[in-house]
């Protein structure tokens, strides 16, 4: 069993909440605890905000989010890809250092990647200078199972 959703947004900050509600609605098909939903929302918010804040100079660029909810052997997994086609990340190790940001003047905390790592089970960063960045996030859901007793 699996369920797929793909969302393509313009690079506007007001669209980050559109993605959050859509993914929340998707996950809610499973009986996932509220705190886990909040943490997943936060991780996605970080990744999407990054594409909008760091990837592009121009407007009317795209960010693509695809989410897959899949059940394997009674376990539920959420896989999310967040992709932009912007400038890319030069040094991924440096970028993922807690507190590192190239936009301190805009009060970025430099904690986006740290939060994604903390709140998800797995993160893969695939970035190429000049062609874009793709973040893969994975989480095994703490789905409440209906007991048969």
């Amino acid at each position, binding site marked *: 069993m699996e369920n797929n959703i793909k969302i393509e947004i313009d690079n506007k*900050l*007001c669209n*980050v*909440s559109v993605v*959050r509600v859509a993914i929340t609605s998707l996950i809610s098909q499973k009986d996932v605890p509220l*705190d886990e939903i*909040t*943490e997943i*929302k*936060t991780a996605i*918010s*970080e990744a999407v*905000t990054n594409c*909008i*804040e760091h990837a592009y100079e121009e407007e009317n660029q795209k960010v693509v989010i695809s989410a897959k909810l899949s059940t394997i052997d009674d376990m539920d997994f959420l896989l999310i890809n967040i992709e932009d086609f912007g400038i890319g990340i030069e040094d991924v190790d440096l970028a993922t250092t*807690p*507190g590192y940001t190239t936009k301190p003047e*805009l*009060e*970025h*905390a*430099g*904690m*986006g990647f*740290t*939060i994604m790592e*903390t*709140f998800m089970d797995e993160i893969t960063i695939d970035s190429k200078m000049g062609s874009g960045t793709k973040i893969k996030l994975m989480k095994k859901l703490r789905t409440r199972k209906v007991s048969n007793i």
Partner: protein
Amino acid sequence: MKYTYDKENESLKLELIEEIDMNSCKALRSIIDGYIIKYNPKECILDLNKVSFMDSSGLGLIMGRHSLIKMLNAKLTLVGPNESIKKIIKLSHIGKEIRII
């Protein structure tokens, strides 16, 4: 934003609401600083009880206000963050510098 200024203790309390993300932060920042600059309080209390969602942009917002408030020789207190917000705050270095109730 609801605010209460306690003259006796020179403490300013600001009640944040709903979702704090990069989109809402930009407006929040200037409103909060406006109140701080108007009252020049000894203590600034950010009430997060009604904040259901906050990502790292909120952390940047808190860090920025913390710097401003330190420059004014005042202190910053956070009230009522939910569990995920607490986790986020503790991930950053300001987790050690700010009082959280």
